[in-house]
């Protein structure tokens, strides 16, 4: 399928979902749906680096928060006191947030991606802690007290503001998925796949691995920042503890791994399943239990079904040839495995 056709189909689906949500007539659908869509963007973004290149990013919260806090900074800048108050449209804020996160992602990658993969992962983990330290100490964006962002009640044509946010996040999700799919079927995607499978061999064949990894980190970081930019308007009270929460990292890793990491479908399936499950569990049980659930599912899936739901479906559809290939591969490894 060509990309414009794919994009069109996505937009049609998005329109159907939006009208469907309108038809429910309860704005809670938009509040819950926004979170799920936000995770669609985050997990798709994570997967561009994690799934395609095989580099684990634990700093989703950091990139997300960068986007959110650049919005807060701009908000404070533009609505200083009552005499002047410009409201910057959210798509512009998203571009700014995306740019900031993308630049930070590039810088991080430049410093750590030349080394073994584990160093990059550890550095991203530490990045979240350091950015939180910076934000806590930066009074302009609220410091540890947090910052209020007053969102308009209504917006023309659409009605309640949450619907507008939902719509924007939906469009971003469509964009993220399209980008992911585009990458997957391009030279870039094949380059990423060679890095994932055998970086040394790829380097030896002349694949510019560092450059490709930097591209992946930048795109991935930028998308996460874009997902974070509208967040202050959604939550209306932004606080470092909740913005840098480990939940973002664990969710954006668990969702692609549960869905399947090698294609854009995986994160989407994983997010829709896990995200909806979490929304239901948060309402019916408790938010701590739902996080425990995510953790257990993540561990269970990486052990039992390493290729996620997509892998399971794939195995089920092509049981015979898959088994054959599997056995041959195991046979080839056998002398290694038995000491």
């Amino acid at each position, binding site marked *: 399928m060509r990309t414009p056709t794919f994009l069109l189909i996505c937009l049609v689906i998005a329109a159907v979902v939006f009208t469907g949500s309108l038809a429910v007539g309860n704005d809670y659908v938009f509040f819950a749906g926004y979170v799920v869509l936000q995770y669609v963007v985050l997990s798709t973004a994570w997967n561009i680096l*994690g799934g395609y290149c*095989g580099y*684990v990013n*634990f700093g989703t919260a950091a990139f997300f928060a960068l986007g959110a806090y650049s919005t807060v900074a701009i908000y404070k800048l533009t609505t200083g006191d009552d005499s002047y108050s410009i409201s910057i449209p959210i798509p512009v804020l998203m571009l700014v947030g995306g740019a900031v996160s993308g630049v930070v992602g590039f810088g991080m990658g430049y*410093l*750590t991606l030349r*080394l073994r*993969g*584990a*160093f990059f*992962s*550890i*550095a991203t*983990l*530490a*990045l979240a*802690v*350091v950015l*939180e*330290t*910076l934000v*806590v*100490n930066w009074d302009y964006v609220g410091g*540890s007290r947090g910052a209020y962002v007053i969102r308009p009640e209504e917006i023309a044509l659409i009605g309640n503001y949450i619907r507008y946010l939902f719509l924007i996040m939906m469009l971003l999700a469509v964009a993220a998925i399209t980008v992911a799919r585009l990458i997957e079927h391009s030279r870039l995607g094949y380059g990423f796949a060679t890095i994932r499978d055998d970086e040394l061999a790829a380097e030896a064949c002349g694949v510019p691995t560092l450059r490709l990894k930097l591209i992946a980190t930048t795109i991935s970081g930028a998308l996460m920042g874009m997902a974070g930019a509208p967040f202050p308007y959604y939550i209306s009270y932004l606080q470092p503890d909740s913005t840098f929460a*480990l939940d973002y*990292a*664990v969710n954006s*890793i*668990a969702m692609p*791994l549960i869905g399947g*990491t090698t294609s854009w479908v995986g994160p989407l399936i994983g997010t829709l399943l896990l995200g909806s499950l979490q929304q239901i569990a948060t309402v019916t049980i408790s938010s*701590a*239990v739902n*996080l*425990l659930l*995510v*953790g*257990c599912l*993540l*561990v269970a899936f*990486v*052990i039992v079904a*390493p290729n996620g739901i997509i892998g399971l479906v794939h195995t089920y559809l092509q049981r015979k040839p898959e088994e054959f290939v599997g056995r041959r591969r195991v046979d080839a490894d056998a002398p290694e*495995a038995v*000491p």
Partner: protein
Amino acid sequence: MIFSFDLLINAVISGILIGGFYAAVTSGVSLAFGILDIVNIAHPAFIILGSYVAYIVNATFGLDPILTAIVAIPPFYVLGAGIYQVYYVSFEKRGQESLRGLAFFFGLLFITEVSLVLYFGVDYRYVDAAYIGPTWHLADVDVPLRILVPCIVSLLMIAVLQLILTRTFIGRAIMAVAQDQLALRLMAVDPVRIKRIAFGISIATASLAGAFLIIIQPVEPSVGREYIGRVFAICVLGGMGSLPGTVIAAMLIGIVESLTSTFYGPSWAPAVSFGFLLLTLAVRPAGLLGR
């Protein structure tokens, strides 16, 4: 701020003391990450587990936390060996340790933390022991015993570890497994067994480190996260798997953190280790005492 010599000396001393504690926290990671190449980012979560074990025993039986931790070493060892077995069968054997192994440990970190939150809540817990209150005053220098005792026991523990690694057969095998697994196999030693033992030891150190942590400061389940960046920064700076390097790096970071919090405010301290980590990775990835 007015520069004061007393303040400087005090900051350096407390940095060295806290560095001794950091060394205990990191020694497990130096073993697992530095020597075995297992990126156990859940290590701080096991340390918090150690803290809670010390807390429970201390609260119910009034036993000394360090004594409790020493008694708890065997269960922690078994836990570590068990985790390694799962890790080996599910990831290392299949050659998937890079992506899924990391996610596995991240999941473990998360499960441990959330379980502790669900069971104990997010209240800060602390222990009682004779050495927690008093402080020695040597001239102008304050030496709080609650930091001095963990520091000394921690250095003892690392000395024992170093002796095990360099003097015993198992220890030498652990060093060898890091260098050449095939050669080890040719010597009729099972590398998987050696790695299991080493990982068990690595988790066993978390029992002691956890007790030190709860002696030094009150603990709640998510405290461990602050240590992730710090622990890996120390491990990398120390030269990945070199225990003497770990001690030096831990004290260095302890001193710099302590100076930072004395002269710029404690809220800036967490940024120090990350700065060190990035600097080390960019300038000298082999670390201070790297091979």
